[in-house]
């Protein structure tokens, strides 16, 4: 694995910064502009969740390689309240904040790999990856 980019998330400008850095990294990895937007949208949702539910946290962006496949990884970490029922939180329309409830299920759909690790009272870690389609 190559370099990592660690981005603190503590204000709404950080959400924009994280998705723009994600887009830039996806461009470096050779993703199409459409895929860059997809990755940026997923980061935007996950970063906003950190801000909204945990107040602060971190997004770690990295390049990943699997054989000759290249991809980007996005890890979102917070020490917030955690998610009591992950299955429910992953359902479209479920929201504890009168939100749209599209963030988690939507980000999962946008990315190729999506994993939620959450412990109530300890925090949440979301790991997502997107792989370049081999040509």
């Amino acid at each position, binding site marked *: 694995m190559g370099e990592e980019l660690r981005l603190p998330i503590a204000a*709404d400008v950080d*959400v924009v910064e994280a998705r*723009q850095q994600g887009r830039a990294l996806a461009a470096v990895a050779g993703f199409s502009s459409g895929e860059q*937007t*997809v990755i940026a949208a997923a980061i*935007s949702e996950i970063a906003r969740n950190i801000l909204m539910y945990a107040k602060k946290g971190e997004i770690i962006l990295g390049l990943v390689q699997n054989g000759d496949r290249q991809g980007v990884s996005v890890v979102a970490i917070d020490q917030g309240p955690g998610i009591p029922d992950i299955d429910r939180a992953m359902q479209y329309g479920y929201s504890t904040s009168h939100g749209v409830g599209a963030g988690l299920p*939507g980000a999962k*759909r946008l990315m190729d790999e999506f994993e939620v690790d959450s412990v109530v009272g300890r925090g949440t870690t979301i790991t997502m990856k997107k792989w370049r389609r081999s040509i």
Partner: protein
Amino acid sequence: MEVPILRQGQYLIASIQSALTDADLSHLREALIAQVGRSRCRGVIVDVTALDVMDSFAVRTLRDIAHMARLRGAETVIVGIQPDVAFAMVQLGLTLKGVATVLDLEEGLAFLDSRTKATLDTKPKRGRG
């Protein structure tokens, strides 16, 4: 990053110039709704050509703008959603249900012209019937 709002005839035109934070989007919503009330305009155009991403907060804010403007007697049309942005938006499961969208500013103006004319045309008929 404040979004400039221009007045053109009976319409307000908000041209988003760059990526917006959630606070920027909320400000835009409040500014537009206040101006719709003050200026008694008939239509609102929000140009999102420069928006990098349409995530759930952006979509919700645009829907709120359209619904609140309608309550104050103005039609809203969203112009300039880029194909990549639209694709990601759909994948996220987000729709602009009930909000008009067209390709560009010119079409937006034409849409509002036809909409406001249509209401003017139907008004006397309704009055008689």
